[in-house]
């Protein structure tokens, strides 16, 4: 302490008397051991402090920015959900089909946007899972109702009741969200902190099973638990998600039989010493046995064989072919033969794509000149050895069944005439069964033609003549596919 004072006195004198600088210099040299570190410390502290403050500010700015983005999504979501419930109310009192269609389409749009905003919030899957589903289904249901009215059908009492029910849930959700909104507004909920806590929460919940920190959203979740199962003609209908396979014929087989089947399905070019795994269960849409079949070269096939009927569900090989020696046509023939031998006859190739020496080929079931886009099997063929690398028959097994073919009420010529209104040139017309979003099967005429140099596939209902679907065919570098 004394030393420092002495130094400051000396220093003070220096400023007044430059002539005595020699003595001062002496003082400085003596005291240097103390002064320099102090100066350095001050400078370093200053620099760090300045830098740290800058960092702090930058971080705050970024956090504020992120927080604002989340706020925007949250308020957007609340607004759109409120719109959904108001519009559902309007739809229920509207008696004009034209207006009702407009309102229901708006419900669909608002519900979808609300779902998208909800999914932008930093919330765990368990918090949003049900609510997101509710919003999708509500929008989807409204969309299907709008579509039905556009077709001239009237909303049934049952439809109205469903809409009423959905509306009640939407109102409850909106109310709970208004609580959350108040807490967000009061600053009790900080989205950025939620992101930071996300990692920690996982560990805490693992130990103590703590409830979600967002009580209001907990109410929403509870409300969502009460939403009944919704079955209707849309893609998000519960029957689409929970559908059962239709194509599984035959008896239950045991693991050993399945193992023999798996051994038969693999297509090694050089087997060497074959090693087949014990086999595990797959509790998917089609319950199956899975086997890992390995050859001497460490090439592995993973094979799924269905427990009922022993059908090949899936086959997947990890080899990457290094060259192409056979043509796409040869590959298609090989794949078709393979399918026919292994329980899938009458398959016609529909689309194909060649990439990295592998042909990706899609097959559809064909019966009496009618193609079934419902029953699809995908195959990968290695173009170096013509080896079947992968097969996927899940889609086929889910939908294929023996069907009575309907006879069309519209003549092929009529379908052509309809298409001629919009297409410049017609290349091909054939009967095709296509799946609707609700998985209903529709018999159609598939008209392939061009408009303004682009190729399209138009599907006309073969019974009513209604246009069911339009696909655009893309002839890209990667092959032919339809969008």
């Amino acid at each position, binding site marked *: 302490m004394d030393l420092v004072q002495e130094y400051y006195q000396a220093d003070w004198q220096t400023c007044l008397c430059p002539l005595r600088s020699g003595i001062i210099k002496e003082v400085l040299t003596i005291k240097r051991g103390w002064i320099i570190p102090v100066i350095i410390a001050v400078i370093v502290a200053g620099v760090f402090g300045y830098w740290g403050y800058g960092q702090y500010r930058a971080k705050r700015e970024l956090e504020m920015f992120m927080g604002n983005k989340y706020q925007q999504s949250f308020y957007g979501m609340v607004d759109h959900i409120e719109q959904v419930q108001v519009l559902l109310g309007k739809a229920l009192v509207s008696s004009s089909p034209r207006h009702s269609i407009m309102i229901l389409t708006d419900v669909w749009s608002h519900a979808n946007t609300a779902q998208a905003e909800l999914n932008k919030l930093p919330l*765990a899957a368990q918090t949003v899972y049900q609510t997101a589903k509710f919003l*999708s289904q509500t929008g989807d249901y409204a969309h299907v109702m709008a579509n039905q009215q556009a077709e001239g059908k009237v909303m049934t009492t049952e439809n109205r009741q469903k809409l009423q029910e959905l509306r009640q849930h939407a109102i409850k959700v909106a109310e709970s969200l208004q609580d959350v909104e108040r807490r967000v507004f009061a600053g009790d909920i900080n989205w950025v902190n939620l992101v930071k806590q996300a990692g920690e929460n996982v560990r805490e919940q693992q130990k103590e099973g703590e409830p979600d920190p967002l009580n209001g959203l907990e109410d929403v979740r509870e409300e969502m638990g009460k939403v009944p199962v919704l079955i209707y003609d849309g*893609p998000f209908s519960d029957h689409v998600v929970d559908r059962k396979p239709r194509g599984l014929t035959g008896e239950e087989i045991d693991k050993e039989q399945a193992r023999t089947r798996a051994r038969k399905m693999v297509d090694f070019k050089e087997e060497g010493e074959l090693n087949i795994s014990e086999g595990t269960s797959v509790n998917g849409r089609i319950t199956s046995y899975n086997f890992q079949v390995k050859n001497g070269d460490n090439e592995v096939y993973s094979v799924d064989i269905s427990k009922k009927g022993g059908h090949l569900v899936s086959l997947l090989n*990890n080899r*990457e072919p290094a060259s192409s020696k056979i043509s796409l046509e040869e590959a298609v023939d090989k794949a078709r033969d393979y399918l026919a031998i292994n329980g899938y006859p009458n398959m016609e190739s529909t689309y194909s794509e060649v990439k*990295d020496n592998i042909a990706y080929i899609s097959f559809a079931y064909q019966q009496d000149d009618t193609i079934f886009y419902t029953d699809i099997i995908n195959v990968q063929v290695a173009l170096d050895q013509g080896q079947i690398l992968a097969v996927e028959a899940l889609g086929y097994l889910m939908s294929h069944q023996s069907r009575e073919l309907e006879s069309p009420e519209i003549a092929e010529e009529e379908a052509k005439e*309809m298409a001629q*209104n919009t297409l410049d040139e017609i290349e091909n017309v054939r009967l095709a069964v296509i799946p609707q979003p609700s998985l209903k099967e529709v018999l159609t005429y598939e008209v392939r033609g061009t408009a*303004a140099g682009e190729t399209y596939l138009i599907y006309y209902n073969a019974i009513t003549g209604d246009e069911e679907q339009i696909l655009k065919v893309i002839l890209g570098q990667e092959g032919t596919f339809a969008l």
Partner: protein
Amino acid sequence: MLKNRGILKVIAINLTLMILILSVFYITRINAAQPTLTWGSRGSSVRILQRRLRQWGYYDGSVDGIYGSESYRAVLNFQRKNRLRVDGIVGPQTWRALGYRGSTRLARTARTVSGGAGISRSNDIEMLARLVHAEARGEPFEGQVAVAAVLLNRVDSASFPNSISGVIYQPLAFESVANGQFYLPADSENVRAARSALNGWDPTHGAVFFWNPAKPVNRWIWSRSIIRRIGRHVFAR
């Protein structure tokens, strides 16, 4: 309007076809245009008219494709009921009321568009492949396809965003996206796994969750129904 809602609509409506036929589909809804019909017209358009009028209870005659007196009366009746001009001429207005597009031809403003202009699947594949790389590097090939399939199953699910990018960038959804691993380039095996999933392969039969049981995870996740285990990952609905 169509453009804006296009992406959602495509996914919502055509989900099933998307999986079943091949890869991703963009569908444009255009109603076929119908020519103007008067007494004496013949052909398929008349049959369409007669069929629709019969469906809706305006017409009892046969669907013969000839616009005769019975059809004429039915059209007059239809026009009266729908507050259209009652002239027996089935023009654009009447066709629209019948649920069809009435003008003669579609406007062809997009003449310059060729082949597959403006459409690319490589973005999707690249994104998927990078996620596979970040989440399932070192897993068996099947496990990589499974991770890509879970991502696509989420796109199709009502509970998750409706696009590949939406699913990938959903907050708190993937650790690798949060920590930047996602931005590392994918290798060729990842790319093939992504392509296989886009072409319909799904070893998980519709799973929307996967996790590594060796790591701490949310307790709720274990309440999901587990489908199978591949490599280090458990897949569940």
